[in-house]
């Protein structure tokens, strides 16, 4: 009996290693982040209807100031536009503002584009712009973007018929980038005021200027985007008359819907659906350049509070294996807290800065050496909290646990229901008594300064373990006040190197964008711009 069990185990082991070597015959186990796509083949013709899916479920609201996550932003990006617009290659171009002038590092003068109409035919004015931007400052409007960057705005004024001037309290070189996000999105003032409480919800909807307007919102099921024939930018007219976005969240149902052609495409296809979609004859899986990061966030308690422990744990964890198995080769081991290529300026500086960081390879001996500096009781287990419905997190933590065991530490996964997990990000009381929790995070804008500031800056929006380092703070402030892109990038590199020493978060992998499209359709950008760029407008016929 025992013999048989051993035989079965060894067959399984052979099968598993077979899979692993099949998945990555090259030396890097995951995908190389430098090989990821920015675009997919351009559409060759127009379509009447495209059906899409939103695996994160139904948006709670279409009001841009209440859009601050995948579900809402992926839809709103096609409806409402900002003063600036993020491009698939992560550059930032003028949007509803023709241009921006910065006479000093506290003043941003936006020249508002003329001849832009809302869907109802009313012309967009500088008053609409001032009104929209000011909504973030009005607590009664309840903007999810209030605080942080918005809190730094001293005034928003109409300074000429077609000119709006924004003044800051202290310099922030990342400020203008945020005009691609809902911080800079323009809605119609008259419509907002008339809609009252129902603005943004399925009854009230919104009034914007984008390439699509809102059609039927069938609650719990789907929302229709209808092509805006009067769109101001004739080069960027939508290629499909209608795009229906469904809200299927179950991985198996998503795989089935995509594989049968019932749905034409989806961003963020669930990891559980990857196997069947990689071999699908209906369409193709595209891996795109991303701004996402999977990391372990320290809370500042227990063994995990010791930087030496975190450093050792990162060195001992086989992050390449996580990229290859848990993410099925659609991610790469993280070298930094800043996702690779997550910048719109300073390319050579950021690339060089990254090269100077420790490599991502596993180093058990090195980890043991680092662990000698630890001053905490290493026999205590480290509990890493994850949302129990997302089983792939348990797989990630299990791999971390393997590395931990090799250097004499104990790491245990601690699953909590999703509803409770959400509170870890917002409620200090929920975090109390825990050591660490896992996160799937993304950069709002391709600016390492803004992302790093949120994680390691004192009081940063994502600084969950109250990390505070006066050297890093002063370097970040200096960077925010530096106009020259190259010089700023060098300063951010300095902060990055220091952050990678202390590791308030342990970066695990940089996941690629996972986009699936039916052979019938093409054109949606492959990179991580679908939160702030009208991706659906580029969707059209593939000619096949």
């Amino acid at each position, binding site marked *: 009996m025992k013999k048989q069990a051993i035989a079965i185990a060894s067959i399984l082991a052979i099968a598993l290693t077979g899979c692993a070597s099949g998945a990555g015959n090259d030396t890097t186990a995951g995908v190389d982040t430098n090989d990821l796509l920015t675009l997919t083949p351009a559409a060759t013709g127009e379509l009447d209807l495209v059906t899409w899916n939103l695996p994160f479920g139904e948006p709670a609201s279409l009001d841009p100031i209440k859009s601050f996550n995948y579900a809402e932003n992926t839809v709103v990006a096609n409806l409402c536009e900002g003063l600036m617009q993020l491009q698939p290659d992560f550059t930032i171009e003028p949007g509803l503002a023709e241009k921006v002038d910065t006479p000093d590092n506290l003043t941003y003068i936006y020249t508002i584009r003329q001849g832009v109409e809302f869907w109802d035919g009313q012309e967009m004015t500088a008053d609409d712009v001032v009104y929209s931007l000011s909504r973030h400052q009005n607590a009664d409007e309840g903007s*999810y973007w209030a*605080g942080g960057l918005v809190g730094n705005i001293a005034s928003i004024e109409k300074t000429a018929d077609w000119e709006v001037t924004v003044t800051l309290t202290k310099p922030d070189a990342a400020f203008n980038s945020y005009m691609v996000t809902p911080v800079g999105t323009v809605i119609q003032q008259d419509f907002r005021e008339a809609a009252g409480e129902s603005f943004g919800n*399925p009854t009230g909807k919104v009034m914007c200027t984008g390439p699509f307007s809102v059609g039927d919102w069938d*609650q719990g099921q789907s929302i229709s985007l209808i092509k805006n024939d009067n769109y101001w930018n004739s080069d960027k007219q939508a290629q499909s008359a209608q795009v229906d976005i*469904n809200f299927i969240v179950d991985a198996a149902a998503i795989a*089935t*819907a995509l594989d049968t052609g019932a749905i034409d495409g989806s961003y963020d296809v669930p990891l559980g659906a990857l196997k069947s979609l990689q071999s699908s004859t209906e369409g193709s899986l595209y891996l795109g350049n991303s701004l996402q990061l999977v990391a372990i966030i320290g809370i500042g308690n227990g063994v995990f509070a010791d930087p030496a422990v975190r450093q050792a744990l990162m060195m001992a964890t086989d992050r390449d294996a996580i990229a290859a198995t848990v993410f099925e080769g659609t991610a790469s081991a993280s070298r930094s807290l800043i996702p690779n290529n997550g910048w719109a300026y300073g390319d050579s500086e950021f690339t060089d800065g990254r090269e100077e960081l420790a490599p991502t390879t596993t180093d058990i001996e090195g980890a043991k050496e680092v662990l000698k500096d630890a001053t905490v009781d290493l026999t205590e287990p480290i509990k890493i909290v994850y949302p129990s419905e997302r089983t792939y997190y348990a797989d990630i933590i299990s791999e971390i646990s393997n590395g931990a065991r090799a250097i004499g530490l104990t790491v245990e996964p601690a699953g909590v229901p*999703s509803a409770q997990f959400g509170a870890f*990000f917002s409620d200090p009381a929920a975090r109390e008594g825990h050591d660490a929790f896992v996160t799937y995070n993304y950069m709002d804008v391709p600016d390492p300064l803004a992302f790093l500031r949120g994680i390691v800056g004192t009081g940063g929006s994502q600084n969950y373990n109250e990390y505070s380092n006066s050297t890093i703070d002063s370097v970040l402030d200096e960077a925010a006040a530096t106009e020259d892109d190259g010089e700023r990038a060098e300063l951010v590199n300095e902060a990055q190197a220091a952050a990678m020493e202390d590791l308030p978060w342990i970066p695990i992998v940089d996941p690629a964008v996972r986009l699936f499209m039916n052979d019938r359709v093409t054109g949606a950008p492959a990179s991580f711009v679908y939160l702030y760029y009208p991706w659906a407008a580029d969707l059209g016929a593939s000619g096949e």
Partner: protein
Amino acid sequence: MTFILRRLAALVGVLIASSFLVFAAMYAAPGSPENFLVQGRTVSPEVLAAIREQYSLDDPFLVRFWNWLTNVLHGDFGRSLANQQDVGELLAGRLPTTLMLVTLAAIIIIVLGIGMGIVAGTRGGVVDKIILLGSNLGFAIPTFFAALILMSIFSVGLGWFPVFGSGEGFFDRVWHLTLPAFALALPSSAVVARITRTSIREERDSEHSVMARARGVAESLVMRRHVIRNSMLPVSTIVGVHIAGLIAGSFVVEYAFTLDGIGTLLVHAVQRKDFAVVQAIAIVLVAAFGIINLLVDLFYASIDPRVKVETTR
């Protein structure tokens, strides 16, 4: 008649008590609603305070419950915290799907469950064995797994049914909801089939059936008058309980087939601590349970005169 009135009064009492319990449970659950709303983003304290004020989240527990109760008596179920929509309006959009799904599943349970049970109970032999095996299988397969299997055979393999959505218009809806209804009804049908079979077996060999046969009453008449009619008493109870349970269990199927019913709405609302929505759905669930149980009792009385005498006294 007083029997019905008394039962309805009891139902109202149960509704108030259960809504109080649900309200208290939501209130006690960890996390604050405004924090779930902003999804972990760090928002200025002024905004959080404004949200708390808009939804009177700072009022004491009993005040909030009392306000809610008096509003409901005026027909106002409040506003959803998550998407700022009128809850009545929100439910009106979702209820038809769940009602239709549950109705279809109930029909399947009654037709398939009782039908199979009668066949197995009266026929015996190979047919009986096959139905027994089938009901064992049906009972053992969890609903979500049944949903997956049905989908992969009838939607993906054969392409007969759509893979998601609840359709528009009556016939399209029936077409969209057939597979989900089967997945939902499967375990209950299996239970009902087994109970019907056992019950029929018992009645077939009971004294009055044997006597009737001895008096020379035709076998088919004995079956209809005595065996099947009498065996329906325990069966009606179990069918009632299972149909009432369908509403609560529908969320699994709604999730798997992406249906816009109240089950998925409830799950989301609980996650976001969306008080008004959870309360309204709880009321609907409890009311449905109470009404179905009432109907079962009435049915019971109609087939067993003894029950009627006792209750109308």
